[in-house]
C-alpha cells in the first residue's frame, strides 16, 4: 500500500465536517426528530429484581382512550434457549430477545415487561399503570460473591456449572507455560484480591428513536446507536421484518462508549408502530437509562505476580469474575485477555468467569473488561516493583512486550509501541517534576499501563466526485468522536485538494454497504482503509480520463496536487487537468466519477498506553483530587491530533470517575438507589485538571496511513494509576473501587485508631 508522505492534511487540526451543525444547535440527535402523525411509546418495567411472570393483563390499558397499541413478549420473536446460540457479532439473540422484553421471568428491576403507544406521553404512562402483571416474586442476588455461592438463587435454571444449576455462565482462559514452575523461580510473589463496582457509560443522550412502519411493512428507523446496521439486524431478528424492508437512519449520537452497541427501544417501537399504524417515538428518561441500560460489570479479581530479584517476571495468575447482569455476556475476554498483555511473561494463566445476577444486562464500556483487569494487575505490578525497590516504570521496561513477544491470547506481536510509551512517560516533564507542596494535604504519584486489542472488521465507503468537481464521501459508521474529520483529512490528502472540498456523511443502511459497529476502536482504522482504496480508484479513473483527453497512455499520467499531469515522455506537453475540469468533462468522457469499496479489514494491531497521575488528598474529608495527569499512548498515526487527544482526555476523565466516585449503589430491595446524575457522580469540570497527552507515533505497518485504534486504551490504565498515586500519598492501598470520600476517610480513621492502640 502507498504510504502518504507529503502530509498536507494528515496530522492537521482541521474543522470537523459536522462541527458547524453542532455549535449552532442544528445537529439532529435521536430525540430531535419528529415524524408526521407520530404517537408516543412508553415501557412498563418490572419493579422486582427477580420474579416469574404468571400473567399479564393489558385489557384495561387497551381500553384507555388515546391508547393505540400494546406489546408484550408474545409479540417479539422468540429465540428458544434449547435451540442454541444465534449470534449477531458478539451478541446472542437468545439473550437479546429476553433483554428487550422479559419472557417467563423478570430478571432485574427495570426489565421491560410491556410497552404502550398512545397519542400523548401522559396517556402512554397512564396506560402502563393500568397493565396488571401477576408476579411470583423470587429470591434474588446481585453481588458476585453472593451469586456464586452454592445456595444462591439461580437466574437461569438450564445452566449448569460443575453439574449443578449455577449463575456461573462460562469460563475463558489464556495460558502460557507452567505457572507452578514459574512461581517456584520467583524471589518475590504478591497476590491480592480487588473488587470494582458497576459503572455506567454515562452518555448524556438518553436512548431514543422514532419509527414508522408502513402498511406494506416498509420500516424507517431514526435512532442514535453505535451501528445503524446493528439496529437493522437486531430489529429484523426480533420483529420478523426482513432487513431489506428496514431503513435504519443514524441520527447524530450523543455519546455511546459501548453502551449503544445493542438495541433497547427499537424493536418495541417498531412493533408498536406496526400495530398502531402510526409512527412511534420513544425516549428513555435518565432513570430508565441508569436502571435498564448498561452498565459495565462489577468485578472480583485475584492477581498473583512473581518476579526474580533482578526484576524479571517469572509467572502471573489472574482470576477475573465479572458480573454479566441478567443475561450472560460479561466482558471476560477483555479482562483475561488484555490485563497482562503489556508484559512478556513466560508462565501465565489468566481466567475469566461470566456471572449472572439480578441487575441490568452488561453492555460494552470502552475497552470492555480491560480496565477492570488492569486495575488489579497494575496495582500488583506496583507492589512488586516496590518490593524489588525498583522504579515502577523501570520494572515495566524490563518486562515490556515488544516485537516477537507472544501474547497469551494468541498473537505474536509485530512492531508495537509499548516500550516507547514507557520511555516517553519516563522522559516526560511530568515524571521529572517534583510533586510540590500540598500545604498539609499529602500528595502522591502513580503510574500504570494498559492494552486493548483494537478491531478491524467490515466497512464500506463510497467516494463520489460531484458535477462541480468536489467530493462526497459516504461511510457506514456513526461518528461519535470526530471520525468524519479524520476521513476528510485522508481523502483530501490523497486527492491533493483543500479538505473543505470534501464532504463526509454517514449513510443509512439502505444507501451504503454493510459496516460493522462503531466500537473496538475500529472506525478510523477501517474507514481509512476503505476510503483510501475508494479514493485510489477514483484517482485511477481521473488519470484514465485525462489520458483519453490527451490521447496518451494512462500510465503516463500522474495525479498530483488535485490535477492530472502528463509525465515522461509527454511531460510538459499538456496543461494539467484539474479535478474541477475533469468533473466538468465527465458527461462526455465516460460518465459519473465515483468508486466504492467494501472490505473485511484486518491488521488492527493492539494499542498500548502508559499513564502518570498525581493526586492530593484532603485527609480531613477523604477527598482525593487529581492535580496532574499525563496519558502517553502509541497512536500509530494521529490523522487529526485534536480528536486523538480528545479520545485520550475523555478516557482519562471516565477513568478518574470510575476510580474516585462512580458506582451503582443498590438498596435492600435490590434496586439501584442512585439512578441520576446528582447521585451517580461523574466528574464535572471543577473536579479535573488539564489532561496532558503525549502521542507516540509508531505507525501500523499494515495500514495505509499507519493508523491504530485510539479510543479505548486511554480508559484502561487510569484506575490503577490513581490507586497507586493514593498509595504513594497515604501509604494505604485501596483494593476496591471507588476510592470515594467515605472509603478514604474510613481508611484514614482506621489508621489513626490503629496508631493510637
Amino acid at each position, binding site marked *: 500500500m502507498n504510504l502518504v508522505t507529503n502530509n498536507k492534511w494528515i496530522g492537521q*487540526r482541521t*474543522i*470537523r465536517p*459536522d*462541527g*458547524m*451543525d*453542532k*455549535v*449552532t*444547535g*442544528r*445537529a*439532529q*440527535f435521536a*430525540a*430531535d426528530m419528529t415524524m408526521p402523525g407520530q404517537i408516543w411509546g412508553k415501557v412498563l418495567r418490572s419493579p422486582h429484581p427477580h420474579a416469574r411472570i404468571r400473567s399479564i393483563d393489558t385489557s384495561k390499558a387497551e381500553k384507555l382512550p388515546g391508547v393505540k397499541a400494546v406489546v408484550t413478549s408474545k409479540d417479539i420473536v422468540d429465540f428458544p434457549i434449547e435451540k442454541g446460540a444465534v449470534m449477531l457479532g458478539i451478541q446472542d439473540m437468545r439473550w437479546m430477545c429476553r433483554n428487550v422484553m422479559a419472557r417467563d421471568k423478570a430478571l432485574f428491576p427495570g426489565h421491560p415487561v410491556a410497552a404502550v403507544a398512545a397519542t400523548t406521553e401522559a396517556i402512554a404512562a397512564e396506560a402502563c399503570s393500568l397493565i396488571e402483571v401477576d408476579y411470583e416474586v423470587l429470591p434474588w442476588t446481585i453481588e458476585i460473591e453472593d451469586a456464586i455461592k452454592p445456595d444462591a438463587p439461580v437466574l437461569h435454571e438450564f445452566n449448569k456449572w460443575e453439574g449443578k444449576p449455577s449463575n456461573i455462565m462460562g469460563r475463558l482462559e489464556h495460558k502460557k507455560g507452567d505457572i507452578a514452575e514459574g512461581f517456584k523461580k520467583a524471589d518475590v510473589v504478591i497476590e491480592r484480591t480487588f473488587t470494582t463496582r458497576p459503572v455506567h*457509560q*454515562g*452518555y*448524556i*443522550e*438518553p436512548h431514543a428513536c422514532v419509527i414508522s412502519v408502513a402498511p406494506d411493512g416498509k420500516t424507517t428507523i431514526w435512532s442514535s446507536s453505535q451501528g445503524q446496521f446493528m439496529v437493522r439486524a437486531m430489529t429484523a431478528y426480533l420483529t420478523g421484518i426482513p432487513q431489506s424492508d428496514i431503513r435504519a437512519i443514524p441520527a*447524530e*449520537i*450523543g*455519546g*455511546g*462508549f459501548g453502551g449503544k452497541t445493542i438495541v433497547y427501544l427499537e424493536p418495541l417501537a417498531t412493533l408498536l408502530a406496526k400495530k398502531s399504524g402510526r409512527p412511534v417515538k420513544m*425516549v428513555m*428518561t*435518565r432513570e430508565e437509562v441508569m436502571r435498564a441500560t448498561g452498565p459495565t460489570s462489577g468485578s472480583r479479581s485475584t492477581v498473583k505476580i512473581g518476579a526474580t530479584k533482578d526484576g524479571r517476571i517469572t509467572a502471573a495468575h489472574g482470576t477475573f469474575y465479572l458480573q454479566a447482569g441478567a443475561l450472560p455476556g460479561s466482558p471476560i475476554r477483555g479482562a483475561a485477555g488484555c490485563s497482562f498483555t503489556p508484559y512478556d511473561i513466560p508462565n501465565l494463566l489468566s481466567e475469566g468467569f461470566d456471572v449472572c445476577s439480578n441487575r441490568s444486562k452488561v453492555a460494552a464500556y470502552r475497552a470492555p473488561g480491560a480496565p477492570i483487569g488492569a486495575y488489579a494487575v497494575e496495582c500488583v505490578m506496583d507492589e512488586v516493583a516496590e518490593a524489588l525497590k525498583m522504579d515502577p516504570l523501570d520494572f515495566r521496561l524490563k518486562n515490556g512486550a515488544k516485537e516477537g513477544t507472544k501474547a497469551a491470547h494468541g498473537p505474536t506481536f509485530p512492531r508495537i509501541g509499548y516500550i516507547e510509551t514507557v520511555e516517553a512517560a519516563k522522559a516526560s516533564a511530568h515524571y521529572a517534576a517534583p510533586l510540590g507542596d500540598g500545604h498539609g494535604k499529602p500528595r502522591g504519584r502513580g503510574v500504570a499501563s494498559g492494552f486493548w486489542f483494537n478491531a478491524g472488521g467490515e466497512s464500506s465507503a463510497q467516494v463520489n466526485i460531484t458535477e462541480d468537481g468536489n467530493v462526497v464521501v459516504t461511510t457506514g459508521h456513526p461518528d*461519535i*468522536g*470526530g471520525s468524519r474529520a479524520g476521513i476528510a483529512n485522508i481523502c483530501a490528502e490523497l486527492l491533493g485538494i483543500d479538505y473543505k472540498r470534501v464532504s463526509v456523511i454517514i449513510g443509512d443502511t439502505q444507501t451504503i454497504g454493510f459496516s460493522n459497529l462503531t466500537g473496538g476502536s475500529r472506525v478510523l482504522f477501517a474507514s481509512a482503509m476503505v476510503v483510501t482504496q475508494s479514493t485510489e480508484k477514483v484517482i485511477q479513473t481521473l488519470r484514465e480520463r485525462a489520458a483519453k483527453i490527451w490521447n496518451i497512455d494512462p500510465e503516463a499520467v500522474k495525479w498530483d496536487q488535485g490535477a492530472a499531469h502528463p509525465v515522461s515522455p509527454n511531460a510538459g506537453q499538456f496543461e494539467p487537468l484539474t479535478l474541477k475540469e475533469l468533473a466538468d468533462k465527465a458527461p462526455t468522457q465516460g460518465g459519473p466519477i465515483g468508486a466504492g469499496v467494501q472490505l473485511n479489514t484486518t491488521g488492527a494491531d493492539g494499542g498500548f498506553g502508559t499513564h502518570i497521575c498525581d493526586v492530593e488528598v484532603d485527609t480531613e474529608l477523604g477527598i482525593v483530587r487529581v492535580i496532574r495527569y499525563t496519558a502517553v499512548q502509541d497512536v500509530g498515526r494521529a490523522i*487529526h491530533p*485534536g*480528536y486523538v*487527544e*480528545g479520545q485520550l*482526555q*475523555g*478516557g*482519562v*476523565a*471516565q477513568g478518574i470517575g470510575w476510580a474516585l466516585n462512580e458506582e451503582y449503589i443498590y438498596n435492600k430491595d435490590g434496586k439501584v438507589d442512585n439512578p*441520576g*446524575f*446528582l447521585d451517580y457522580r*461523574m*466528574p*464535572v*469540570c*471543577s*473536579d*479535573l485538571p*488539564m*489532561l496532558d497527552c503525549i502521542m507516540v507515533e509508531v505507525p501500523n505497518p499494515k495500514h495505509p496511513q499507519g493508523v491504530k485504534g485510539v479510543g479505548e486504551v486511554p480508559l484502561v490504565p487510569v484506575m490503577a494509576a490513581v490507586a497507586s498515586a493514593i498509595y504513594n500519598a497515604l501509604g494505604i492501598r485501596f483494593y476496591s473501587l471507588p476510592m470515594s470520600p467515605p472509603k478514604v476517610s474510613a481508611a484514614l480513621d482506621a489508621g489513626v485508631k490503629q496508631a493510637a492502640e
Partner: protein
Amino acid sequence: MAKIHVTTTINGEPVEYLCEPNDTMLDALRGPLGLTGSKEGCSSGDCGACSITVDDQLICSCLMLAAEAEGHEIRTIEGMADGEKLHPLQQKFLEQAALQCGICTSGMLVASDALLRRNPNPSEEEVRFWLAGNLCRCTGYDKIVRAVLETAAEMRDGIKEAAQ
C-alpha cells in the same frame, strides 16, 4: 384541561405559544417551538444540556415551567450566532476540537457565553466552577476550558483594539 397562552421573546423575536401547566420550558422549546438545539439529558437540572438564559440569567430550561416565560427575554443556542457570523466561542470550539459527540455543546456554549458576559477575564478555576453544572462525558473538559479561556482573551483584545 385548558392550555396556557404565553407571550415572550426568544432570541430577540416575539413568540407566542400554548403550553400545559406542567410543561417545562425545555418541553416548549423542543416541542411547539421546534428549537431542538437545547437537549434533554436528565430533566433534573444535573447535566446542563438544556442551558438557556432568561433575562441574561443562566438556567436549566428543564427546571423552568413554560408558563414562566411570559414577558421575559429568552436566549437559546439557536440565537447565539449573528446570522452567518458565529459567536467567537462557537468558532473557538470548532477550531480547538472542544466537542466530540456534541450533545453537551449547546449547553456548554450558552453557559460559557453567560460566564464571559459576567466576567470577561475568568481564571481557569472560575471557568471550571462556572461550567461545573454542564456535564460532558466525551472530552474530559480540557479543550472546552482552553477554548473558553482563549476566547475570553481574544474578546478582551478585540475590545481593546476597538477602543484604540
